[in-house]
């Protein structure tokens, strides 16, 4: 791992996940430092960690272990001028078949694979198909039942790699009441809308949700609509795109506060 980062990619720092104290956590090591026991079998949103430490690393190239979804998240953040693309090197990690099945991921292979063997993606999600065959009444009852489990812990926003707004609209009292749990349907509708042009289907919201709300399915449904309406899938490298905050042909730079 250290060899790929520091010799092959000529990076100055490495961000990866390691095992320690019986847990898996992120490790940031500079050239010459001991990285530790690298482990990559647990999905971990290193891009979220990178967003946090990026302002505190003023110089040098950072190598980051990225699955296809992390790579797309980096693209989205570079587009919006949050990261400098020249300062980031990607160590491509291909997901194993088990992980792909868990995420129902359709696009699991990074553009350059350094670790792991590429596996084919899954085309359809069982729950999405089931929900689409339901009547709208059944669907509403299903989602109300799911959203009742929400305790407004904000794990879905905190762990999201592409949630970058300084002031979150969900913390504004206009849309979500200060008191009261569950927070109501508006919370999830607003979040769906805000993620529509940047969600990269990593599934971290679903994994971190203590209520096990199938949030990834909700995102997948919105992304499908986004593709049908505007032919747009988040995560590409175009600097202009049909997003909801800009019009076609408008530059994206400076679009760092969409809320």
């Amino acid at each position, binding site marked *: 791992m250290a060899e790929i980062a520091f010799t092959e990619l000529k990076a100055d720092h490495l961000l990866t996940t390691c095992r320690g104290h019986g847990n898996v956590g992120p490790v940031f090591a500079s050239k010459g430092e001991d990285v530790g026991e690298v482990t990559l079998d647990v999905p971990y949103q290193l891009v979220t960690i990178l967003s946090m430490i990026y302002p505190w690393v003023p110089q040098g190239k950072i190598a980051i272990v990225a699955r296809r979804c992390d790579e797309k998240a980096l693209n989205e953040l570079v587009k919006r001028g949050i990261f400098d693309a020249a300062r980031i090197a990607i160590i491509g990690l291909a997901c194993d078949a088990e992980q792909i099945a868990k995420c129902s991921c359709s696009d699991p292979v990074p553009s350059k694979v350094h670790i792991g063997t590429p596996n084919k993606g899954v085309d359809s999600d069982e729950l999405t198909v089931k929900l689409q065959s339901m009547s*709208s009444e059944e669907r*509403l009852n299903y*989602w109300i039942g799911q959203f009742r489990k929400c305790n407004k812990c904000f794990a879905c926003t905190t762990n999201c790699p592409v949630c970058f707004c300084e002031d979150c*609209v969900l913390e504004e009292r206009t849309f979500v009441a200060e008191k009261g749990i*569950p927070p109501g349907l*508006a919370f999830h*509708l*607003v979040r769906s809308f805000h993620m529509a042009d940047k969600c990269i289907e990593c599934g971290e919201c679903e994994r971190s949700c203590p209520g096990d709300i199938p949030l990834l399915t909700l995102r997948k449904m919105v992304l499908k609509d986004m593709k049908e309406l505007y032919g747009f899938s988040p995560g590409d490298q175009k600097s202009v795109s049909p997003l*909801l905050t800009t019009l076609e042909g408008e530059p994206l730079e400076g679009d760092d506060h969409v809320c």
Partner: protein
Amino acid sequence: MSDFNPTILAFCCNWCSYAGADLAGVSRLQMPPNVHVIRVMCSASVKPEYVFKALSQGIDGVLVLGCHIGDCHYLTGNHRTAKRFPLAQKILRNIGIDERRLRLDWVSAAEGEKFQQVITEFVAEIKKLGPNPLREVRL
């Protein structure tokens, strides 16, 4: 359901639709009294968040009215609106709320009659759809 009287919000842009609503009123055009008009500076300043909040609190239908494409006082405001609201409708449908409860239309300052027609049609449509299922839900 003949005794069902829907509550409807209409966001009208200051420069066109609100003036259109005014014209409809001055011309004494008859239309159902179920609509609460909210004046906004531009249809693009209606965040879909407002619509989601209104619907999740039990409003039966939301109308967003702006200037015709090309006539926006802020040049590109209604282009943005036209981009956001189809997606907002899809999100509502995914959750299981009928997307017809949200409607986007263009009414210019000279179109008092169109304002009357949009309101009459929308109220009739919402009456057909019935009350918002979320009205009774405590979430």
